[in-house]
C-alpha cells in the first residue's frame, strides 16, 4: 500500500536533488533544469495531497490539482524567459558558467 508518506518522501528526494543541483552545478542550463525539478517536486506533493484528501462525497479535493496546472504554466513561462536570458548572456559573455558571472561582487 502506497501511503501519503511515500509520495512525500519521493517529493522530498526530488526537491533535495533539485536544490543540490542549484547549489552545486556550474552550468546555468543544468541549474535551470534543477529548478524545474524542484518545482515538480512541489507539484508531486500537491497532487499527493489532493489524492489523499477525500471529501464526504468520495471525490478528491481538486483545488490542489488546479494549483499544479498554474505551477506548470508559470514554470513554462519561466523556462522561456530563463532560456532567453541565458542565450543573451551567452552571447554577451561566451559562457554559461555561474562562477564567471560575478559582477555584483563588491
Amino acid at each position, binding site marked *: 500500500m502506497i501511503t501519503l508518506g511515500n509520495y512525500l518522501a519521493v517529493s522530498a528526494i526530488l526537491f533535495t536533488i533539485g536544490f543540490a543541483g*542549484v*547549489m*552545486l552545478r556550474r552550468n546555468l542550463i543544468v541549474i535551470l533544469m534543477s529548478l524545474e525539478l524542484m518545482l515538480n517536486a512541489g507539484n508531486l506533493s500537491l497532487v499527493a495531497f489532493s489524492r489523499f484528501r477525500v471529501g464526504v462525497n468520495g471525490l478528491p479535493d481538486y483545488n490542489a490539482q488546479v494549483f499544479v496546472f498554474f505551477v506548470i504554466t508559470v514554470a513554462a513561462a519561466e523556462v522561456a524567459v530563463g532560456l532567453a536570458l541565458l542565450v543573451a548572456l551567452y552571447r554577451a559573455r561566451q559562457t554559461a558558467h*555561474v562562477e564567471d*558571472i*560575478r559582477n*555584483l*561582487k*563588491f
Partner: protein
Amino acid sequence: MNSFYPWLILLAPFASATVITLFTLRSKSLSSAISIAAVLVSFVFSCFIFAQSATAALEFVWIDITPVFRVPLGLTLDQLSRTMAVLVSGVGALIHIYSLGYMRDDEGKSRYFAALSLFMFAMLGIVFANNFVMLFIFWELVGFTSYVLIGHWFFRNAAADAANKAFITTRIGDFGFMTGILMIWATTGSVVFAEITPRMSMFGGHATFVAIVALLIFCGAVGKSAQFPLHVWLPDAMEGPTPVSALIHAATMVAAGVYMLVRVAFIIQASQTALLVVAWIGTTTAVMAALIATQQDDIKRILAYSTLSQLGYMVMAVGLASNNAAMFHLFTHAFFKALLFLAAGSVIVMLHHEQNIWKMGGLRRKLPVTFITFTVGALALIGCPPFSGFFSKDAILALAYERNMPIFAIALFTAFLTAFYVIRMLVIVFFGNPRSDNARQGRESPTVMTWPLVVLAILATLGGFGFFARNFLALPVENAVSAFVPGLAIIALILGGGLAFAVYRGRSTEAVNVELLRRKFYFDEFYSSLIYWTQELLASLSAFVDRWIIDAGVVGGASRGTWGIGALLRLIQVGNLQAYAFLFGLGVVALIYFAVIR
C-alpha cells in the same frame, strides 16, 4: 492747564526732532530754527514752572497689571527737578544758539539739530521721570543720541569708533543698572520712586543684598557719568562736534548719572558699604583723571579729563551722603564746563579745527572775548575765589574733611593737580608766542558764538554765591571747619597754578614727560588686550567644541558609523549566484521555522 506745562517742556524738543527728521531735512536753516524754537519753549516753560514752584503734572497710566507691575507716565516736580530743568534747557538753549555759528557750513546741520532736539527731550525726560522704567528708557535714549552726535562726522573713522566705544561702554553699566532696577522691583513690587521710599523696609535688613542692589544701580551712573573703570569712553567722545561735547559730555548727560544717584539716594544711603564704594570710586576717578590731564596735548581731551575729575568729585559727594554738595557742584560745573568747552570750540574753529595746544599760543590778543571767558571758566574750574567752582568744591572738601580723612587728602591733591593742568593749558594756549600759522592768523569768533560765552561766563562767576544758588538748590550746610579747609584749598591752588606757570611759561614744547600719564595709565591698551584675550579664549573654546564634539563626534560619528556598518554588510555581497540562492534558502528555512514551528 498748568499741570500740562511740564509735558510741554518735555514734548517740545521731541516734536522738533520729529518734524525735522520727517519734513525739513533738506532745509538746514529751517531745521535749526525749529530746533532752537523748541529748546526756547522748553526753557521759557521751565522758568515758568520754576517761578511758580509748580508741583502738579498730569499723570497717565501706561502699563497697569496691579498689583504686580504698574508703570505710570508721570513727572516728578520738586526743587531738584525744576532746577535741573532750568539748567538743562538753559545751557541747552545757549549751546543750540552757539551751534548756529559752529555748525554754520556743516553738511549734516539738519541731522545735527534733530539729534540735539532728541537729546533735549531725552535729558529732560531723565530729569522729570518719576519711576525707574521711564528713567531707564530716557537713559538709553540719551545714550543713543550721544552715540549719534559723537558719530556726527561718521566718515572719520576715529569718530565712528568713538561713537561705538561710548555706546558699548555705557551699555556695560546699563546692564548692571537694569539688573538693579529689576531687583528693586522684585523686592518692593514697585518701580515708582515715591512708592519705593516707604517700602525700603521690605529689604528686611539684608545688608549685603541692599549693598548689591545699590551698587548695581550705581553701575548705571558709573557708565553714564564715566567713572572709573568705565571712564574710557568720555575722552574719545571728544571726536564729536564741540558744542556736543559741551552739552552732552560736560554739562548735562554725564551729570545725569549724578542726578540719578541723588534721585535714588534713599537706596544708596541704605547701605554703608555701598556709600563707601561710591565715595572711593568717585575719589579714584577724580585723582586718576586729574593725573592723566596733566600730560594731554589735545585741548578737548584735557577738558574731558577735567570733566571726569569733577564728576569724580560729585560722585564722591554722593558717596559721602551729601546730595546737596553733589548737586551744588553739578550746578556750578554745568556752567563753567559748558563755558570752557564753548570757548575751546571758539579757539578750535578759528584755528581751522586745530586741537593741539602746542600749535596754539599767544591767542589772548587775537581772541580777546574767548580769552577772558575761558579764563573765567578756568578759574571757576580750579576753584579760585570768588568764582563759582570755589564754593561748590569747597563744600565737597569740607564734607570730606568731616567724614573721611583719606578721601579729603586725595581730594585736596586732586585740587592741586586741577590747578596745575588748567593753568598749564591756559598758559600754553593763550600766552607766549603763536606756534603755527593758524594761530598767527586767528581772529575772534562771530557774535552768535561769543555771546553764549559771555552769558555762561556771568553764570560761572555768579553761580556759586549763596544769594544766587540758594534760589535753585538746597545748599550744603557749612560746618565749623571755618577757614581751615578753604585755606588749604587755596594753598593747593596757588601751589599747583604757580608750579604750572613756572614750568610752562614761555615754553614751546613739553617740559615734563611722564609716559604712564601720557598713555592714560594704559587703560585702553589694557581693555583691548582684555577683550582680545577673552575673545581668544571663547574662540578657542568654541573651536574645540566645533572641531572635536560637533565635527568629530556628531557629524564624523554619523558618517563613520554608516561607513562601518556598510563595510560589515558588504562582506556578504560575494557576487556568487549560488551563494545568494543558498542564503535565500536559509532565509526560507528560517521563515518556516518561525512561522510554523515556533
